[in-house]
C-alpha cells in the first residue's frame, strides 16, 4: 500500500465511530478496494483517490449515516464507560501518590507526635467548694 492510500485510509478511520468489529470490517473492505484501485492506478495521487472513492469525511459520514442509531449509541456508551473507569483509576492513583508522599515525608522529617489529651473536670465537695482536677 503506498503513502497516498495509507493517508486516505487513515483519514477515513479518524471519522468512524462505531463498534470495533464493524469498524474493522468496514476498513478492511475499504482497504481491499483501495488496493484494487492502486493496481489499476499505480500513479494516482491523493486527489485522484478522493475523486474515485469520495472525500474521506464524506465516505465516513456516508458510512456513519447508514449505521443504525442504536449501534452508534452502543459505541458511545462503551466510550463513556471506559472514560469513567479511566477517571476513577486516575483518582485512585492520585490518592495513592499523595498518601505515599505524605508517608515518605513524615518518615524523612520525623514522626508526627500527637499531643496528649488533657481533660479538666471539677466536682463540689461536702463543704460546697468547687474542686478542679486534671485528668491525663
Amino acid at each position, binding site marked *: 500500500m503506498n503513502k497516498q492510500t495509507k493517508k486516505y485510509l487513515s483519514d477515513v478511520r479518524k471519522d468512524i465511530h462505531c463498534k470495533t468489529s464493524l469498524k474493522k470490517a468496514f476498513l478492511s473492505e475499504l482497504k*481491499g*478496494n483501495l488496493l*484494487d484501485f492502486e493496481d489499476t492506478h499505480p500513479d494516482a495521487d491523493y486527489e485522484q483517490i478522493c475523486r474515485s472513492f469520495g472525500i474521506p469525511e464524506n465516505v465516513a*459520514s*456516508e458510512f456513519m449515516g447508514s*449505521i443504525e442509531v442504536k449501534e452508534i449509541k452502543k459505541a458511545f456508551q462503551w466510550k463513556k464507560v471506559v472514560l469513567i473507569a479511566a477517571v476513577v483509576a486516575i483518582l485512585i492513583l492520585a490518592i495513592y501518590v499523595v498518601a505515599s508522599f505524605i508517608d515518605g515525608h513524615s518518615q524523612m522529617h520525623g514522626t508526627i507526635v500527637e499531643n496528649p489529651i488533657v481533660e479538666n473536670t471539677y466536682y463540689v465537695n461536702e463543704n460546697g467548694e468547687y474542686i478542679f482536677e486534671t485528668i491525663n
Partner: protein
Amino acid sequence: MGQGQDNFKRGTAEMLLLFLLSKEEMYGYQLMNVLSERSEGRYNILEGTISLLMLKSEEAGFVKSKSVTVGKRRIRKYYSLTEKGEERLQKLLDEYKDTVFGIQMILGSGGEDGE
C-alpha cells in the same frame, strides 16, 4: 450532487448491488465501477455505502463471500447472491416498480385533481 439524489441512490443501492450480483460474482471495487460504467457516470455511490451494504447483506444472509488470493499475499472478497438474496432482490424490485408506477401516475395526472 443534491441531497435528494443522494437519498434516492442510498435507497436503491441495495437493489442494484443485489441485481448485479445475481448476474455474476463481483468484488467491492468492481461493483463500484460497474455501477458507474453502466449508468454512464450518472449513478455513483460512495465506497462507504457499498462496503456497509455488503457487510449488512452478508450478515443478513443475502450474499455470501469467498476470499481469493490475489498476487502474493492479498485477499480479495468476491460476493455472490444466495437464495435468500434472490428473494430479497425480487421483493426490492417489486417495491421499486410499484413506487415508480405510483410516481408516474402522480406526475402524469399533472396535478389536475388537486385543483
